[in-house]
């Protein structure tokens, strides 16, 4: 019976129609995010929502590590302690020399009226979460804007440069790794001082791009940041060259390398926070 004010054939939309609607919304989301970066609010919201959950769920993993650590052999610990003591003695020596050099450098720079380099401050952070690495390789750290982090800061571990902070939330931050496809890092070859550009290849590999075929580069060369970009301080180790080949076509060498930072294993990292420089008179 037809009831006034009600459609005769009123029924729910079929699955195909509903799929079409949601697909349209989905495509709109993608476009808004990629083209207009309009979804940052949603990202921060989700980060606030998930942060406590991730913090809580880190506990079981920590307990497992602790139990495993408890059964570490005594002899191994002693070995490690001896190695660390030896390294500390060596580092103390280097630190003294470095202090001396720093003082001398400051005097020389003052004499030459060069700009002094901005002071670096270190913020310790720990790996909180790692996502799939299908399109870009990112990790989430447990420190965020509250600890003074901001987008663009370099992240290092004991081995070298890990990546760059690409997204900051109040309590956490997202780091794009140096091996992430599309991530570029200005470097120089430590042995020759020649500057170049390192790009991530995915799969934990890097590529030194646009080096003319007569470039002096060998397998085993270290690549360090060049410091000309005002993002990374100079001389952070980035990668070691593992393969140099000369393609038939194209004027450039094909140079591949592996990152020096332990990107897959490091759980504790440092973020280099450059102090904003005081205005010069």
């Amino acid at each position, binding site marked *: 019976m037809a009831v006034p004010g009600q459609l005769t054939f009123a029924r729910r939309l079929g*699955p*195909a129609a*509903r*799929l079409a*609607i*949601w*697909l349209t*919304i*989905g*495509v*709109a*989301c*993608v476009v*808004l*995010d*990629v083209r207009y970066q309009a*979804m940052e609010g*949603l*990202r921060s919201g*989700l*980060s606030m929502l*998930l942060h406590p*959950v*991730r913090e809580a*769920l*880190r506990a*079981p*993993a920590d307990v497992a590590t602790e139990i495993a650590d408890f059964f570490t052999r005594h002899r191994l610990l002693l070995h490690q302690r001896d190695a660390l003591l030896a390294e500390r003695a060596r580092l103390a020596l280097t630190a003294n020399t470095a202090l001396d050099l720093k003082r001398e450098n400051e005097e020389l720079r003052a004499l030459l009226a060069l700009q002094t380099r901005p002071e670096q401050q270190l913020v310790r952070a720990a*790996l*909180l*979460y*790692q*996502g*799939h*690495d*299908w*399109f*870009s390789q*990112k990790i*989430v750290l447990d420190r965020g804007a509250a600890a003074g982090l901001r987008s663009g800061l370099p992240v290092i571990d004991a081995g070298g440069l890990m990546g760059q902070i690409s*997204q900051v939330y109040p309590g956490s931050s*997202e780091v794009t790794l140096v091996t992430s*496809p*599309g991530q570029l890092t200005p470097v120089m070859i430590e042995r020759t001082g020649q500057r170049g550009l390192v790009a991530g*290849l*995915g*799969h934990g590999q890097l590529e030194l791009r646009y080096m003319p075929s007569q470039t002096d580069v060998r397998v085993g060369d270290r690549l360090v940041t060049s410091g000309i970009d005002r993002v990374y301080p100079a001389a952070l180790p980035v990668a070691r060259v593992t393969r140099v080949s000369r393609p038939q076509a194209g004027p450039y060498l094909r140079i591949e390398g592996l990152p020096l930072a332990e990107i*897959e294993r490091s759980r504790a990292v440092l973020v280099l926070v450059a102090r904003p420089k005081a205005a010069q008179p």
Partner: protein
Amino acid sequence: MNMPRKTGGWRRVLGTLALAAGLTQLPWSGWALALRPDFVLVALLFWVLHRPERIGFGWAFCLGLLADFQDGAVFGQHAIAYAVAVYGVLFLRLRLLQFAPLQQAAQMFPILLAAQLTVLLVGWLAVRPPAGLAILLPVLASTALWFLIALWLRAWHGKGMRGAE
């Protein structure tokens, strides 16, 4: 219905979805991460199959946005894929309910694969070509997980999956 009424309560539905989302938040890494089944998608499709009147496209889309956030991916990538998967399950629903766990998992495989291929395609179009085909590994793990869940369900509810034969 193929499952006793009381098992599909809101509390249980939301509980399993929250559990799935929580499992994803664990600090996975290395091979475990590469092979990690898509817990949220499996839980979602399970409830779409057994309680389509409760869980549908809207839920799929919201959970997809959550998955996008987790991987630091483009918003909409997983959301579109989950919507496609929900459509696949709704399309094959009556058929899927007829089968024993192994056959059911085998038929879920193309649906899960389609979802993952959608993720691949959207990422490819919106960001850049993917780094290798490792993106398809979780499909196998998700299918295996589905099989285990279907097996468990049948053991728990007796002949529940096959209805009143």
